[in-house]
């Protein structure tokens, strides 16, 4: 078989392979779209697959004194991504506000000690 015949055979085999196996190259994908109004904005996001992240966040919430039911009520409203982000940075699971009264008493005592020290 000379070179020309060999090349012809390669072309023929390639064409046969394409006809039998390969799909046409121009398959179309469904294009990107805008969000439909109010689409898929479910209040309940209980589709959690990241069980580890879920457990970590649950433990952090439990550390704040929440009951199992209170924890569950929150977890179902968080997405996988929410849980993943929080689990990666559990310092973010905190409660803020409502400064307890003892803090003012403590600060008052400290202030009094400072004044006493300044006077004497």
């Amino acid at each position, binding site marked *: 078989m000379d070179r020309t015949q060999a090349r012809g055979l390669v072309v023929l085999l390639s064409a046969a392979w394409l006809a039998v196996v390969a799909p046409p190259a121009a*398959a179309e994908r469904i*294009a990107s779209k805008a969000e439909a109004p109010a689409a898929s904005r479910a209040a309940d996001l209980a589709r959690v697959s990241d069980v580890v992240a879920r457990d970590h966040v649950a433990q952090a919430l439990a550390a704040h004194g929440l009951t199992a039911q209170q924890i569950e009520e929150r977890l179902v409203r968080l997405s996988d991504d929410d849980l993943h982000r929080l689990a990666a940075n559990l310092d973010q699971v905190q409660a803020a506000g409502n400064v307890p009264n003892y803090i003012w008493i403590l600060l008052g005592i400290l202030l009094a000690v400072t004044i006493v020290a300044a006077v004497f």
Partner: protein
Amino acid sequence: MGGRRAARLAALALAMLSGCVSLAPRSRTPSPEARVIPGVPLTVFEQDRCGPGSLSMVLRAHGDTASARDLEAVLPEAPGRGVLSVDMLIAARQRGFDAALVTGTAETVRGELAAGRPAILMLRLLDAPGARRDIYHYVVVDGFDTPRGLCRFQFGDGKARWARLESLEGSWKPAGHVLLVVWSLADTDAAIARALALESQGRLEEADALYREVLVVRPESVRTWVNLGNVAADLGRRAESETAYRRALAIAPDDRDALNNLAWLLLGEGTRLEEAETLATKAASQPGADRPLALDTLGRIQLARGRCPEAAGTFREALGAEGLPDATRAGLRDALRQAGECRPR
């Protein structure tokens, strides 16, 4: 008490104060270029209710009418007192906003402010001995001064404090740099529209970044996951594309776009045709404008698996649809011709 002993006690007290208590920063003078987001008046948080107070301020900037008192009803007090960051997030979503708790940076804060959105930071004001006795506080950041590198903070005492974000680092870091970002639905929809425009202009990296930004605040957006998968596929990042389509399907298992496009991706890969066919069959079983495209994908998978007559039937069915774009019709005819020429395996 002897003078020396009292002095030692005082020194100790001062050391404790300086080490454990973070005070609000001293306000600096902003430049004339400083900008404050409209609709965020200086506010006093009633009885240090910084959770409902700060959330009300942010929501009102987006046009919501909820007062701090209204929000108190939906923001449960945590057993150890205060309002949990997670509850702030949930409450914002319940009011109809897109929201997220993110690890904030100077860039994130600047980005939110530049887009006209105030945000909420949580700061640790007191590092008290013992578990869960630290005192945390929500503050609102609602203005910026680019020339002087300042942001405007509201601590809830009715005063505006212009300060560098870095000046809060000591109290923000212990709270994990948590930042509650809140977007109106219109903001998010507009961001998706901008990302679509970028995608159509071929600015794929920018579109990718913007879709990801959207998914932070609207993680359940099936459309955005599919769009992100499309961009990743166009960028040649097949694994990322597959992950994005699968995330869409985890939220909406019957979503035709996600089913079809994942099948399309697997067809291109060529090694998981059985799964591709299952997905495409499900996509093609649903009525609607894009059904011919799903049939197209299914037919090509059948062809790739050597089921030529079946593929030809699928292409014929797709060609029977009305109103097909010329390019789609031409592609289907070409595929039908190939199905006619192929030999079944």
